[in-house]
């Protein structure tokens, strides 16, 4: 994922701040990652690299840990966050089909964010309304009985919102600050 303009500085400042507040020991690795994610919303590669430098461990160890735990995300949250429930009831009523429809329509995989950061797609364990299965949560709003047809409807609303946005600001402001 490409970094936006000014994001690099933000990440570096954030990591520096968090590393300054914690003693740089191996036991503190998870709390450090949690604090950085809380501030940035996700864990960019640059942040992981800098944390590895600070703690003097190989960067791949941080990457290993971040990919192991579900609580860490590697991609920035999109403007619209879509979460598809994969709890038992939702899974049995076709939650995987719902997730696949979203993946196809968005052109991204679960756990990823679209290039313009308009939407991100995640799976969750259980939202707590199994009678509505299969469930998807769109920006904290619960949608019940989400069939692939309903996915098309949801996507239509999101696409409309994206077009409105595009008119407001012409041209992408993605900077080539990829590290």
């Amino acid at each position, binding site marked *: 994922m490409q970094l936006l303009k000014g994001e690099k500085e933000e990440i570096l400042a954030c990591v520096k701040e968090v590393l300054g507040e914690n003693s740089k020991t191996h036991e503190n690795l998870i709390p450090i990652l949690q604090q950085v994610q809380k501030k940035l919303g996700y864990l960019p*590669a640059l942040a992981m*690299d800098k944390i590895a430098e600070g703690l003097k461990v190989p960067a*791949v160890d941080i990457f290993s840990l971040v*990919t*192991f735990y579900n609580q860490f995300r590697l991609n920035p949250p999109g403007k619209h966050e879509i979460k598809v429930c994969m709890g038992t009831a939702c899974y049995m009523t076709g939650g995987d089909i719902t997730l696949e429809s979203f993946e196809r329509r968005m052109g991204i995989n679960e756990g990823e964010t679209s290039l313009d950061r308009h939407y991100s797609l995640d799976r969750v364990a259980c939202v707590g309304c199994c009678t509505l299965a299969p469930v998807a949560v769109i920006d904290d709003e619960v949608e019940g009985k989400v069939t692939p047809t309903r996915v098309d409807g949801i996507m239509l609303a999101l696409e409309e919102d994206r077009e409105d946005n595009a008119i407001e600001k012409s041209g992408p402001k993605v900077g080539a600050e990829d590290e």
Partner: protein
Amino acid sequence: MSDYITMIIDDREVKARRGEKLLWVALDNDIYIPHLCAIKEEKRPNASCRLCFVEIEGHNQPVTACTREVEEGMVVATRSSRVDRLVKTGFELLLSDHNLKCRECPANKNCSLQVIAKKRGLKLKHHRFNPLKREFKLDDSPAEFAFDRSRCVLCGQCTWADRFEAEVGAIGFTNRGIDRVVTTFNDLPLADSICTECKLCVDACPVGALYYKKDQNA
């Protein structure tokens, strides 16, 4: 207390250094126990390959030989119906996520899986468990070697060599469960990572996952 103890493995009296792990004592005495993930220098073995099971008298369950320290008067049997069953299941599970095109593999006839199959009379075929369908991209970015993850058995020999012999820290395990894989930071190709291409990991690989390009059979 003397430094050496005597014990019995498969009805044979064996002398061993106190504190040594059972697996290495057996192997040093030419008694074969299947193993993939075991590393002699490792203080706390992972015991993740689940192949080195043996029966120890006084234990009601088979135990992994790589984690068990030898004791004076220990009586060990490397084969039993329970051990064979565990090893067979473990082996078949490993094969369910292994590319079984041995003829195309550079490690053909020089492969730990083939050795285990031969010694324990197991077949190199998918039988009870359906093969996992995972897609991997071949990483042939380094100059002299390549990494084919479809043949990886996740034993950790390469990551050990990378970390403690080469002291680089370029590769490690990522993801969890069925998606687990050996890779570099941010999934970069090896040549773009901090890998120094020292090739110690290639020498450590017990199968054909990491291999020299010159050994490749087109």
